[in-house]
């Protein structure tokens, strides 16, 4: 395992997409220390900011206050990346495989446009989780993001496949222009969830305000949720699916598009 420990937090954002098992695993400690990072517009070395220890391998651990360190794990395809602390924007952006674990919070654009792998954030995340970058047609295309805490605006914007689970409350526009995939809101969301969604599923385990362009369809327990429940149970996330506990109210929309998405709102048996 390679350990990188950040000294003083940078005053301006530090772009460090080299902090990824793909880049680091085949290198010696000296080569890792010499890797380029960008402090603002200036190119610097990893060693200018991080103490590098350990033995080469597919496991990389980064310590420190990384809130201003961007693009960690960008495009990673394998291995394990652990962030001990808070992570900055674009963590795991465009990743295709492997797993990222964050013990603290993560910034905006977490897992944006990712197409595989797993991201687990023990704290909260910013906005645009798994989203498409501005101008891009599709956000997340596969993989799983699990956030124990809350999340910001536009979670899963234009996502096409994959699963996002948020434990805490989520701000406005969750699933904006969603094209597929599944968002699980364990504590609900603020306004306009599912706005302009074409396809995909938003599951809310708490009541949420719905746009008038969503129509009630039925109350039932979809069989497919059992597959997700089993999958997410491996991450310690429980999704109710048993009719003895309750059922889901299914709303279809967004009719403003018009879309064929769905919002499933859990109703515990009273």
């Amino acid at each position, binding site marked *: 395992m390679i350990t990188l420990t950040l000294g003083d937090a940078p005053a301006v954002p530090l772009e460090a997409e080299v902090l990824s098992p793909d880049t680091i695993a085949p290198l010696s400690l000296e080569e890792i220390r010499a890797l380029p990072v960008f402090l603002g517009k200036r190119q610097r070395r990893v060693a200018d900011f991080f103490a590098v220890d350990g033995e080469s391998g597919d496991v990389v651990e980064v310590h420190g206050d990384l809130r201003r360190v961007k693009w960690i794990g960008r495009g990673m395809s394998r291995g394990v990346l652990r962030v001990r602390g808070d992570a900055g924007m674009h963590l795991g952006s465009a990743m295709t495989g492997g797993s990222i674990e964050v013990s603290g919070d993560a910034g905006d654009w977490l897992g944006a446009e990712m197409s595989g792998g797993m991201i687990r954030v023990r704290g909260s995340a910013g906005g645009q989780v798994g989203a498409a970058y501005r101008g891009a047609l599709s956000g997340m295309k596969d993989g799983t993001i699990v956030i124990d805490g809350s999340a910001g605006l536009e979670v899963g914007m234009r996502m096409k496949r994959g699963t996002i689970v948020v434990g805490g409350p989520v701000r406005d526009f969750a699933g904006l222009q969603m094209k597929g995939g599944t968002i699980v809101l364990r504590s609900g969301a603020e306004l306009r969830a599912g706005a302009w969604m074409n*396809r995909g599923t938003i599951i809310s385990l708490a009541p949420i305000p719905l746009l008038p362009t969503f129509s009630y369809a*039925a109350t039932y327990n*979809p*069989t*497919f949720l059992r*597959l997700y429940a*089993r999958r997410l149970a491996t991450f310690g996330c429980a999704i109710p699916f048993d009719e003895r506990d309750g059922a889901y109210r299914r709303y279809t929309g967004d009719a403003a598009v018009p879309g064929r998405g769905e919002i499933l709102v859990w109703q515990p048996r009273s």
Partner: protein
Amino acid sequence: MQPRIADTFAEAFDMSAARVVITAQSPRWARIAAESMTGFATSVIGCKVEAGIEVDLTPNETPDGRPGVSVLLFAFDAGGLGQRLVDRVGQSVLTCPTTACFDGLPEAHERVAVGGLLRHFGDRYQSSKFLDGRRYWRIPVMEGEFLVQESFGVQRAIGGGNLLILARDQAAALSAAEAASDAMRSVGVILPFPGGIVRSGSKVGARHYKKMVASTNDAYCPTLRGRADVTSALPDEVNAVLEIVVDGLDREAIERALRAGIGAASRPGVVEITAGNYGGKLGKHHFHLKDLTS
């Protein structure tokens, strides 16, 4: 007295197999769907597919955590098997209350579309979910949704392993065959005939009807013994014969089943246990009974 074990072999053939896992709200409905799906599937000659229930599954053993039943289907090739899967899942599982249908051979490289074709029943109201590299179709039905996996794995398999139980009378033959079929059922094999037992063993073609693909196995029909145009294979004391046909996912599974069947069928009233073959000319898999009992 122990029956004689004939010094011969069961001749079996290459086939393609699929495993279908049917789940439902209760074991009863999973079983109903499985029994419907495996109906009229005794022989590829007449039914285009051989199918049977492999095992009942507990909720811990199924993808959706509900009770289930595992079904095996065998056909001559993957193309034909795919068609039969679409027909049978579509008519017997899709229609059955509370069921869902999953691929039981996820590691198989060869795939045939099942949910990918059945989805059209949804008339564009269907939707899909993609989870862990597999696509599942959600087809709206009057009771809710039918969930079916897009594609099912197909693997090479062996069909036509068999035992012939030669007994003094019908009761002894049936009793031995029942015991054998119970003992032979296990993971990886099916016994496609009714109750696992077939009384109408056949020979290839016919002597008198040229268009017949198969006809009665006259050499093993007790009532034809003594006729001038029949060369009977039956000892004098044999008055009833029953056959057990076994299809399996691999050679080991069939050997295990045949061995268990020979052991269970070795009971009073059974004169001889033998097997059907075509002189080794048609099937490349030979199961020598002596090897199985040594």
